[in-house]
């Protein structure tokens, strides 16, 4: 590594996390620790019906018996589940505001700081936002407009009361609570999240968006998202997240379930920028997320796009179960790790139906002392006639103290199915760098250009609103880091 690179690597490590502020706001918390009382407390705070509480308690019992998952290539310090607050809500939220005007101005200010001006966006961007602050949904914009089309876009705790039949039918149907210990934990203590239902043959006219923010200290965030796209419908959903800068680690364990019925399409995009910890590896979010989509009906489609730049430790595998014939699953991912970050991310494509197709494009960039792993599973079951998968996962290494790993599992039980997998790991191409520099670009600009080109295949899949943010985020992540 040349001295220039070392210098700029140092510069990068000084780059500060700009979302690391704390909002001083009074909050109501559950007692520390996890037991049946905590779950009853959460359920009571949310005025949940009896069936919801008993479902939570069942999941809690399952969680008690389950060991921590061990498959990932991560060093996870022991997590003391009794040292976490499982519920935290701003005090002014005891009664949920009906309108944005009733929301605490401090909260609105926080979201403005984060670049999520609820008011402004409502008018300008045409994006319907559901903002989740610690454990509760703060506000959902554009609700009325969506209601006219029959679209339900609200917090999950509201949906439990207003659409119990849908929640009962689909909650836990894609990610069974017993899947692994974090899915059971989330099912037991989830505090809020978004619920979306798109009725038959409705194309959602705007991007739906949720913004997650962890504010309170020692609080875990356990949100739950459930999206159901009925026959012939379409929805594009965006998710963003940030957290304050703290020395202690915080746990974020979310479950996201998508269900696409016949001819329906769901596009789910995430820009994950939780606090990654400082340059010594202190603090940061443990981001253990289970995301799974079910292409239940014929010709349905689920597409995951993610840009992962934050979190101290991430494990996350947005997956598709391709059950309906001719259904399509897609996964586009950019994961950038720096300093002491660890990421183990990838996808799982399970082909069950005939003519199902899936595509995986994953780009990993490791810098500093980070470890970046792609872990993917593609399986064709016996009945998946003429199914097809294409996987491409590329890794880029900057510096010789980081690691890039690729761990794909490929299993075919059908002789008409075709799977193609290719992966490569390399450093930034010297020839490309030379070409750019020869044309007057600085080393940094050249690297940024090459990396952006490297990620382009994924970034172009993001909706407009996110593409700009994501591109900036990639640029920030590289600022001064490589040249």
């Amino acid at each position, binding site marked *: 590594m040349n001295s220039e690179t070392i210098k700029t690597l140092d510069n990068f490590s000084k780059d500060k996390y700009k979302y690391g502020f704390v909002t001083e706001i009074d909050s109501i918390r559950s007692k520390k620790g996890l037991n049946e009382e905590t779950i009853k407390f959460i359920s009571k705070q949310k005025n949940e019906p009896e069936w919801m509480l008993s479902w939570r308690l069942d999941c809690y019992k399952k969680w008690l018996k389950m060991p921590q998952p061990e498959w990932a290539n991560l060093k996870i310090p022991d997590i003391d589940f009794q040292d976490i607050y499982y519920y935290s809500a701003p005090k002014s939220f005891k009664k949920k505001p009906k309108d944005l005007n009733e929301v605490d101005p401090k909260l609105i200010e926080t979201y403005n700081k984060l670049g999520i001006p609820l008011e402004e966006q409502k008018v300008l961007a045409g994006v319907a936002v559901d903002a989740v602050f610690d454990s509760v949904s703060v506000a959902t914009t554009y609700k009325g407009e969506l209601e006219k089309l029959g679209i339900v876009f609200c917090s999950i705790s509201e949906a439990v009361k207003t659409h119990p039949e849908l929640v009962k039918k689909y909650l836990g149907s894609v990610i069974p609570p017993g899947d692994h210990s974090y899915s059971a934990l989330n099912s037991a203590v989830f505090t809020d999240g978004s619920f979306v239902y798109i009725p038959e043959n409705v194309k959602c006219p705007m991007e739906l968006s949720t913004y997650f923010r962890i504010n309170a200290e020692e609080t875990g965030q356990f949100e739950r998202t459930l999206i159901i796209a009925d026959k012939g419908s379409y929805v594009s959903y965006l998710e963003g997240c940030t957290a304050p800068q703290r020395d202690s680690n915080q746990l974020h364990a979310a479950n996201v379930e998508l269900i696409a019925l016949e001819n329906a399409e769901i596009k789910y995009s995430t820009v994950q920028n939780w606090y990654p910890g400082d340059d010594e590896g202190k603090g940061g979010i443990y981001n253990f997320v289970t995301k799974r989509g079910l292409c239940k009906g014929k010709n349905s489609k689920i597409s995951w796009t993610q840009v992962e730049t934050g979190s101290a430790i991430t494990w996350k595998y947005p997956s598709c179960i391709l059950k309906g014939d001719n259904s399509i699953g897609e996964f586009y991912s950019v994961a950038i790790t720096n300093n002491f970050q660890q990421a183990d991310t990838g996808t799982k494509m399970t082909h069950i139906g005939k003519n199902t197709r899936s595509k995986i494009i994953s780009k990993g960039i490791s810098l500093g002392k980070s470890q970046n792993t792609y872990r993917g599973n593609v399986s064709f079951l016996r009945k998946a006639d003429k199914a097809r998968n294409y996987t491409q996962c590329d890794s880029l290494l900057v510096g010789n103290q980081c690691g890039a790993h690729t761990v*794909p599992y490929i299993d075919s039980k059908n002789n008409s199915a*075709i799977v193609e997998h290719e992966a490569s790991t390399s450093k930034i191409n010297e020839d490309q760098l030379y070409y750019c520099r020869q044309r007057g670009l600085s080393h940094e600009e050249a690297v940024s250009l090459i990396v952006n080109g490297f990620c382009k295949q994924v970034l172009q899949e993001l909706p407009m609103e996110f593409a700009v943010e994501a591109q900036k985020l990639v640029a920030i992540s590289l600022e001064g880091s490589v040249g």
Partner: protein
Amino acid sequence: MNFQENFNNHLKQYIFSNDNYLLKERQKIFNKINLNKFDKKNNESLKNISISDLSSFNYFYQPSKEKPTLEISEKNVYQINLVNGKCPDYKDENIEIRNILIKDIELFKSNNQKDTNDIVADLNLVFLNSGILIDVNQKSKIKICLNYKAEKDFTIFQHNFFNFFKNSEVIIEENFYLTENTINNIYYNINIEENSKIKHNIFQDFASSNKLLLTSNTTCAKKSSFSQNSYNFSKGFVRNFHNAKLNGVFSKASLKGCFLLKDDNVCSNKTHITHNAENCESDQKYKGILNNISKANYYSNTFVSKNAQKTEGYQLSKGILLSDKCSFFSKPELRIFADDVKCSHGSTIGPVDENSLYYLRSRGINKKQAMKMIISSFIKDDLIDLDKKNIDRINKNLTQYLSTI
């Protein structure tokens, strides 16, 4: 006979049974397996084969009437005919060949095959009953043919040590003449010194009642090269687990293999190359054709340590599935800790290529014939550096396999 009976009843028959250290090691492994204290879920050595298949068998080993022999048919070509894991003792200016002796016990103590989570390698140490040692002297240019013969019902647990000293050039050819109902668990330690070039060809074609479990650990010093090709046409279970460590700069390792499976045959493959030095190259490539209800798996792994800059590592796995009941699992893995590297892997599984089939059929070749042509070319693609005798042998096996499609 179960595992416990095998272990207790024949303890005296195993090699080094009087040594306390090895006895303890054996006891430790025995307890681990007997009490199920190992990782079953992620254990690569148990893919497609159950622990009971590996540990429950009738242990049988005794001195044989037939003596192992050595022939030098042409100059520098050594034909070694092993019988039940035993070889003749021989020494000349090129080579020394002998069975392992009590003085070799240190080799086992220093050999770190523990903690690999490999049950087959564990069993090899527990039931160890034979082993040979081959030293090839500096600058020797020779060919060694190892012909393994196993008599009916024999269970052979063999540990071999091959040392190739500086500047040697050797072709090793291994053939297996297994009679009936034999188990052959063979573990190799191959040490290649500076500037040596080793080619290792393994031919596996035997009847269905036999089992062959091969595990090799190769270390390559500076500027050395190791090229291994395994050809599996067996009707019985074969496991090929081969590891190589590139410890010297500018060394090269290539681990390749192909397999043809049919009926209910199972085959388990793994290659693992560790790059510990700069400017090394590696290549891992396995290809397979599966028919009927056969099953196969292939794990490949390229590990590049922090100081192994300028590494080039390639992996490829290809599988053709001919029936709707066979299955193929592959896991091509890259673990990279150095930044100036070029590593890649590719993996495909699918039916015979439709376009190629169409091309041939449009030229008047019937479907069956066209299929045979495509499959032959798929295998023959890699038959380089083989002599005519071996190519004929592969052709014969291939024709036999194709006749059942």
